[in-house]
């Protein structure tokens, strides 16, 4: 064998030996969420500190609470798990299978009556809301609710955490209303 082949062979041998060792790092795949125990979820008290409605006079910590990020954002396994929960908990029954809403509001547009930040959506699911949104805080542990939030974020209409200034309070009807809904709202 010539010299170059031998060198390339040694390089490939090094690759060959390192590969299974590095593959043993936190393996992710399939529908498994075995890594979830290491996921740092936001503290319940932190999410609970996010007020609803007008924020004049709210304490300074509000800003920190509002910018709580969803640890599961963009995680494909979490989004799929959230989708499964969306179906199993029958969210689709009110919000429709594609999230476009029916009895319940559209989750894919940019109008969020109770706020479209991740932590605000979390609180909506956790606490329930007037006019029919059930409270899931007993039935679903925080981990599962954050996965649901991840799924809703994947639908494209939520407010990004970096934009939290613009979502300090829920949208009033007429604010930031989605164009399609606006057309309907015209008297």
């Amino acid at each position, binding site marked *: 064998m010539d010299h170059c082949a031998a060198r390339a062979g040694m390089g490939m041998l090094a690759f060959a030996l390192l590969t299974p060792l590095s593959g043993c790092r936190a393996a992710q795949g399939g*529908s*498994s969420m*075995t890594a979830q*125990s290491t996921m740092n979820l936001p503290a319940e008290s932190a999410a609970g500190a996010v007020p609803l409605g007008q924020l004049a006079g709210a304490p300074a910590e509000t800003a920190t609470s509002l910018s709580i990020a969803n640890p599961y954002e963009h995680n494909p396994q979490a989004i799929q798990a959230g989708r499964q929960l969306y179906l*199993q908990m029958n969210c689709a029954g009110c919000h429709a299978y594609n999230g476009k809403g029916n009895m319940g509001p559209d989750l894919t547009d940019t109008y969020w009556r109770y706020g479209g930040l991740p932590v605000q959506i979390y609180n909506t699911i956790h606490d329930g809301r007037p006019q029919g949104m059930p409270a*899931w805080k*007993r*039935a679903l542990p925080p981990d*599962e609710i954050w996965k649901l939030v991840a799924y809703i974020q994947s639908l494209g209409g939520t407010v990004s955490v970096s934009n939290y200034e613009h979502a300090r309070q829920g949208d009033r009807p007429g604010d930031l209303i989605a164009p399609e809904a606006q057309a309907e709202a015209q008297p």
Partner: protein
Amino acid sequence: MRPRIAMLCCGLLAAPAATWAETPMSYQRTFGPAVDPVTRLAWGLGTVSLVVIVVIGVLLLGSLLRRRDAADGDSGQLAVRHDGGGMAWIYVGSGISLVVLTGCMVWTLIVTAAVARPPSPPLLTVQVTASQWWWGLRYQGAQPDRTFTTANEIHIPVGQPIRFELASADVVHSFWIPQLAGKMDVIPGQTNVLWLQANKPGTYRGQCAAYCGVQHAHMAIFLVAESAQDFAAWQNHQLAETPMPVSDSDRRGEEVFQGHCAVCHTIRGTGSAGHVGPDLTHLMTRGTIAAGLLPNTPGTLAAWIANPGSLKPGTHMPAQVLSGSELKAVTSYLTTLN
């Protein structure tokens, strides 16, 4: 040194024999007409196989070690100097192989026909729904109020053919109780049918036999075959009312259950009607939980509820946030579900 080697060899040979005793998944001995002819066929084919291996082994060793004429010592010479000969080996060898294969094929067809259909129409049908990583069971009754659902532990009367209708809630699984029947895949979008019959009372273990995700390894199923009276008693018990919680702690436990567990689990006769996880009515009549992974005791129940992911990593059951007293209450409530 020699005695030690002898002991090691005996140990290695005896080890398989020692394991015979405690091998609930082994099918060298089977207990029902859906599989007994197959077991005999398997032993037969296995014997034929071993004989073939020994015969070929002897021929091989013979051909390697047999004495040859010293006259061929000149290594420059060939042993055989023409391109031919030796064809008798092929004719005889393949001829015998063909005859043996044909015989085995005929026997196989006979056995296949024998086990294809039950000896008499089954009087009992169990609808099995396989999910990641547990088995839902539904016993259809003649009237709607005789229909009930349970999970992970099948009961059947002995001596009768039973029909299983197999459906999947998610991915491909495979239903396999080796001592009673061969395996049948459970494929989404179609319902496969299996029949089996237990001729001997007892508890038979099965396991999912098609890779279905990270906890495929822990998707066992237990089948209890019992006399007709015992089966009827079990059936009536499953249809009986769920006992009402009596003590304060148990009532609190039921409240915890309704709030935290009822979205996924059902206990018939209470306010819970969840279809995501196994039906828990009369939970304490089952010998195991978590699809055969853990024995059904208060301690394991509590551990399972507190953190399912630590016992069955990747399971879809989340770890509920329960205080110590809530956990105790709900566990004690569940242990009343006889």
